[in-house]
């Protein structure tokens, strides 16, 4: 426990969020609010991209500006929105879910958030010196030759990666060592499991990307020749380093969202989660398998042709643990007493849209098909179904679900449902046409295109504009409800996981008396067995 967390007075609570705090709950909110700001920014870039693509030969933005927009749209959305918003959720929830008073290293925790700020500012500042324009994949030699912003981009991603690694060290240590009495591994909430699996992945993969980024920065700044072809450098090396992180990054961005909806389905179905252990194990399986598939992004590049098949197989195998999760969720709601509150709607939306992303991922893993659709709009559609239909839906589900925990207030249900409907229709409208455009021959990252793709692109743009509009009711809802929403009580959803056993919002030290856990987190339909033991002797871990 840290002194400033104790000292924070409720009356001035909002000021805590503006400065240095070591309270994991404050840091969690700081992460989520900051990342949402970047989400709006990345969304604005997407809006400009989709406006440009309304007509095949539009000149709304120049080719140079367009490449800068796509590069930074991708980078901002991944590194400054999805990763940090999920890190924020983890920060807020992990100590509460395992009955700890804070994270294991509170100051490191604050530092990992505060690295996000210069990281984000650097990426934005790059627009003043010629922003990165080589795609978020930054393939060399194009990225070594680009404008100065490319260097700022590399440094920014190094900072954001470092922040992510620090956070993961904290998560792993906290989960392994700070569980309260009775919180055995097989009683941990599935969100906690997913953060554990994610953190192991971050710690294995991120250093490799960081090394690659340092090589690019050195080629640009001090004249080393790691990627210079005439000097004997190897452009394929970068692709290996980049994808060794950036494919697992997809799982880093989707596993916590899966963890969140694994919490939501049992609550809103009034049933225990189906196959708890299999869901937990499948998170670990996805995380380990996820480290063995990166070269499926390189089937068309200069890799040894004999190596392609093993990567195809390992990639396809990931469909198996993913399928286990989806079928377990379906079995959880089957025969339940379903409440269609907004968190549940977004969780259902997650399954229905992530499914499309998952199935098309198997198409992309099949080498002969990939050789046709690689680097086309088919890939753009696939990744947005995974990351927008999946991760972002999951993040929204989580934000709606835990909002009363964080604020003690309820969100407006009607606005929530409007948001869900617009988001669901917008996502499908924006990304489904892209599959067809890609199959028919439209490459990705093009500022102009063949006129026969006009209608497909106009549908996609319409969907994107609807998505932009869908954010408005959400923002309004979040802000107004925080000030004047109805009081939620401590446990508005009648959930049974440990974070709901303390007040909403929780006190600075999380639990008035250290809880003792005697049963799992999803025992719906059975007598309540998680108790708050009053004896100090039972405390600690």
């Amino acid at each position, binding site marked *: 426990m840290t002194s400033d967390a104790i000292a924070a007075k409720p009356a001035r609570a909002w000021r805590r969020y503006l400065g240095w705090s070591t309270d994991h709950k404050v840091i969690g909110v700081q992460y989520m609010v900051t990342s949402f700001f970047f989400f709006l920014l990345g969304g604005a870039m997407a809006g400009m991209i989709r406006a440009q693509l309304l007509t095949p030969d539009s000149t709304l933005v120049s080719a140079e500006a367009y490449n800068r927009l796509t590069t930074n749209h991708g980078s901002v959305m991944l590194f400054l929105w999805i990763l940090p918003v999920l890190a924020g959720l983890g920060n807020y929830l992990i100590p509460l879910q395992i009955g700890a008073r804070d994270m294991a290293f509170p100051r490191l925790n604050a530092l990992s958030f505060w690295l996000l700020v210069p990281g984000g500012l650097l990426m934005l500042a790059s627009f003043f010196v010629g922003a990165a324009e080589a795609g978020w994949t930054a393939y060399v030699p194009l990225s070594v030759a680009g404008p100065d912003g490319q260097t700022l981009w590399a440094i920014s991603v190094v900072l954001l990666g470092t922040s992510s690694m620090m956070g993961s060290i904290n998560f792993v240590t906290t989960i392994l060592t700070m569980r309260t009495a009775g919180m055995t591994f097989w009683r941990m909430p599935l969100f906690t499991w997913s953060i554990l699996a994610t953190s192991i992945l971050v710690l294995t993969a991120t250093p490799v990307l960081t090394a690659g980024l340092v090589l690019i920065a050195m080629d640009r700044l001090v004249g080393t020749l790691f990627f210079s072809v005439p000097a004997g450098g190897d452009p394929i090396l970068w692709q290996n380093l980049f994808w060794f992180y950036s494919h697992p990054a997809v799982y880093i961005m989707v596993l916590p969202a899966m963890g969140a909806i694994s919490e939501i389905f049992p609550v809103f179905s*009034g049933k225990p989660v189906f196959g708890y252990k299999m869901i937990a194990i499948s998170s670990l399986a996805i995380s380990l398998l996820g480290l063995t598939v990166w070269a499926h992004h390189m089937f068309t590049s200069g890799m040894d042709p004999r190596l392609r098949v093993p990567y195809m197989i390992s990639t396809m195998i990931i469909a*198996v643990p993913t399928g286990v999760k989806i079928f377990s969720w379906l079995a959880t709601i089957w025969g339940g*007493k379903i409440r269609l509150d907004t968190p549940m709607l977004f969780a259902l939306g997650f399954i229905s849209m992530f499914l499309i992303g998952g199935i098309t991922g*198997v198409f992309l893993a099949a080498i002969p098909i990939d050789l046709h659709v690689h680097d086309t709009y088919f890939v753009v559609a696939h990744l947005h179904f995974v990351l927008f239909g999946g991760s972002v839906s999951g993040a929204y589900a989580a934000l709606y679900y835990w909002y009363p925990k964080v604020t003690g207030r309820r969100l407006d249900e009607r606005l929530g449902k409007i948001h869900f409907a617009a988001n669901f229709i917008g996502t499908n409208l924006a990304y489904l046409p892209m599959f067809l455009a890609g199959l028919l021959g439209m490459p*990705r990252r093009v500022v102009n295109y063949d006129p026969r793709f006009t209608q497909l692109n106009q549908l996609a743009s319409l969907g994107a504009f609807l998505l932009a509009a869908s954010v408005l009711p959400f923002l309004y809802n979040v802000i107004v409800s925080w000030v004047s929403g109805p009081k939620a009580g401590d446990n508005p959803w009648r959930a049974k996981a440990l974070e709901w056993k303390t007040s909403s919002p929780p006190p600075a030290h999380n639990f008035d008396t250290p809880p003792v856990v005697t049963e799992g987190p999803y025992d*719906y339909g059975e007598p309540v067995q998680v108790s708050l033991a009053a004896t100090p002797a039972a405390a600690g871990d």
Partner: protein
Amino acid sequence: MKERTLLVIVLVTTALLAAGFWVAANVNLMPAEASTRAALVDQLFRAMLGLAAVIFLLVEGLLLYSVLRFRRSKGDEGDAVPVHGNRALEIVWTVIPALIVVVIGSYSFRVLAASETREADPIVVNIHSRQFSWSFEYPAEGVTSTDLHLPLGRQARFLITSDDVIHSFWVPEFRVKRDATPGQIAELLVTPSRLGAYPVRCAELCGVGHASMGLSSQAVVESPEDFQSWIEKTRALSNDPVTTFNTMGCNGCHSLAAAGAKGVVGPVLDGLGQRAGSTASGQDAATYIRTSIVKPGDQIVPGFADNVMPRNFGERLKPEQLQALVDFLMAQ
């Protein structure tokens, strides 16, 4: 298991499989099939689409059915009947997807092997890429062109490379692409199977001209006789400056009406002959144009970036080609 449950399972499974077969047989999302590989890829794609339809309909169907059927009634505050798991069911939904993966994986491997088998006597084409154009060199025939002409039914063996950044050679109708990586020569085998002209695209982001790269190039599949006469016609034009202008990729960045070039990255070359003599002090028009080709960094037209134009035209152009090109540009 009750008889009624069994009946429902059998009926639903049959309906799903029927839907899958229907999708596989009737849904075509691909462009024309212009290579033997395309036919194989499309078979695989349709089979996977059928399977995908079954899984999609199963999951979305279960989801929708649950939401409609298992709703909490108003005022009911109790929980549902708790079910923690079912070993048999969990084994089924682990094993069946695993089997599907094995089938798709083996099928994909067979398609891959069949589409990458070498045939006797292929026609070799060296594909050169650069920001922002392609050229196709036929070493045995001694011909270079901006269009890719291929004889129908004869396997083509492409050897693909790049002069600068990574590009990716893609003809959607051939259903295949291959990255053009500097410092590497990548091999790609395609057997054209359908007459026609198809667009050549760059699939890997390569800079400001990426979207327009290859708009002036086509893959033309023609009869062996037409191909032979095209080779002879093109060979006769090998020192023709317009041909040189386009095969060397000048058209990828510059626009010039006389060559039909519409590039937007570099300076416009129309009217060059009139202004070339007064552009750089101490250089007459011919010297300025020649220098700008072989040493493009010496004089950068204001408003344009250095280090975009390749520096190796001095080596790549034969002296008589360079002279013809300079004369041609002087006349513009």
